[in-house]
């Protein structure tokens, strides 16, 4: 478990993190979302004691990070895959990490195999592609078999096989009861991987919620109904207090009620149903909605092309 309490970090006049309070529980994958410059990396660095907070505190399983004698056995983190000494081989990089925390040497070959770098152990890290460097960083995080894992953009540079592998790995680690905390900008992956979300913007907390709850409360959620008797069904639903609109393809766009109610109503009145589905706003859309006012580096306004919502 990671506990962040009133955490703040100021760099001169700039406040990067402003009174953040949230908890990352064990047994779940928690996503850390926010626009660029929102303070995510700074927060993660403060969890590891790399930067000192200006105010507030952060603890891991009840203790500050620096209080652990063998911290790699407590928290495994990947912050920047490219921050390695290029002249060293992958094996040697993991070897010194293992030695520093009294981790058995055998773990090095084990984690290399686990991340798919078994044949690349003897290669110099400087020659690694971004994807390979990411895998090495993940291997380093897993080295101490820690109960808490923290990843900053773990899927960066990974091929589709790697992306699917990471998703499966993170969910398996959470299922084992570990604390998994990851930040990522890849919304489609986050929607499939995370159970909970912490959303920050301009250094402040915007939302701390379960993914399912966030998606269920989307303002753009609606029920899509196709029926041979759209006018009749529409009138019945409106009478029940729902709002009904017609789509360009003839389907009904219903808000203010549930799909179960629509289906039951159609059955009872003997109306045919060709299609009945609950359409949710994607995580990307919900996230953009939440953080619209908190974007630090705003691009020119264009009409956003919403990714198709599978549901």
């Amino acid at each position: 478990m990671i506990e962040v309490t009133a955490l703040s970090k100021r760099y001169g006049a700039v406040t990067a993190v402003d009174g953040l309070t949230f908890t990352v529980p064990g047994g779940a994958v928690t996503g850390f979302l926010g626009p660029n410059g929102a303070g995510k990396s700074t927060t993660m660095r403060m969890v590891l004691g790399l930067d000192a907070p200006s105010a507030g505190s952060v603890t891991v399983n009840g203790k500050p990070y620096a209080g652990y004698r063998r911290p790699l056995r407590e928290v495994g983190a990947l912050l920047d895959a490219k921050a390695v000494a290029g002249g060293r081989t992958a094996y040697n990089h993991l070897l010194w990490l293992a030695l520093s925390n009294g981790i058995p040497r055998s773990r090095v070959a084990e984690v290399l195999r686990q991340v798919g770098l078994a044949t690349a152990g003897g290669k110099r890290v400087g020659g690694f592609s971004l994807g390979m460097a990411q895998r090495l960083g993940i291997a380093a995080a897993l080295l101490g078999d820690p109960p808490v894992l923290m990843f900053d953009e773990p899927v960066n540079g990974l091929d589709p096989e790697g992306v699917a592998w990471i998703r499966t790995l993170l969910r398996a680690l959470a299922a084992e009861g570990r604390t998994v905390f990851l930040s990522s900008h890849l919304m489609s992956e986050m929607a499939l991987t995370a159970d909970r979300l912490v959303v920050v913007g301009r250094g402040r907390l915007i939302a701390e919620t379960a993914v399912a709850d966030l998606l269920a409360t989307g303002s753009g959620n609606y029920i899509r109904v196709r029926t041979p008797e759209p006018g009749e069904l529409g009138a019945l639903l409106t009478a029940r207090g729902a709002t009904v609109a017609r789509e360009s393809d003839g389907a009904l766009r219903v808000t203010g009620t549930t799909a179960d109610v629509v289906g039951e109503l159609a059955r009872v009145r003997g109306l045919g149903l060709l299609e009945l589905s609950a359409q949710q706003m994607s995580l990307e859309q919900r996230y953009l909605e939440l953080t619209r006012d908190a974007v630090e580096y705003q691009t020119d306004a264009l009409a956003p092309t919403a990714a198709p919502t599978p549901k």
Partner: protein
Amino acid sequence: MTVAATTAAAATAPDPAVRRRGDFTNVARAELAKLRTVRSTYWTLLVAFAANIGFAVLAASLIAPRLGARDRANVDVVRLALAGLHLSQIAFGVLGVLVITSEYSTGMIRTTLAATPRRRTLLAAKALVLSGVTLVTATASTFAAYLAFQAALPAGIFAGTSWSGPGVARAVFGGGLYLTALGLLGFGLGAVLRSSTGAIATLFGLLFVPPLLLDLLPGSWKSAVGPYVPMESGGQVYIAVHYDPGSLGPWGGFAVFCLYAAAAALAGFALINHRDA
């Protein structure tokens, strides 16, 4: 929550199959592994050895035979033999700098500090490993240089060049000590400045600029300040007999030199806990 607690306990409980080692030993072993697994370490040592041995041979075969009788009486044999130290000191100084600054330049310092959040322990382990490796290799190189010098020296030029000659063994060993302290000086500068180029430039400045400046000063200044500048003070320890006029002597001079190294290192220790990674 129970599952998490159990997993947490299981993951952090010490593995009985692993021999329990002290924390400092672990960090030191990791630092030694780091030093051993980069090519720059080996290149630096190769340059140092080549410089020391190469210049020893040159001194013996080219300089020594051409010395006049008065020079032969006044030149210090070990200092002549260890002429290569002027070059190898750069190699060892740079090695000391890189041990710490390469972490910052690659960004690996964050991984290192995540593995060892106790920063002074980390610095101490780095300093210890650096000193140990440097002492062994530098002393080996000075001994090798002196042997090469003796081998290349035409017979009968100097008296008292054997190992039993006055101050010879101490001076040759002193060369190793000088290079070790120099490595630590580089290390301290690197820890303070956190930049390879900055620390190396400062190291060069500390070593080579004072002698140049001193030549511009009036004689009284020169004789008062001169013996205390880094290369002058430290350099006495690898002189067997013929010390510079007004010098602090081998151990006095070396002690002053060690103060420079200690000051830089202590500044590094003081700063590392107060700066973000």
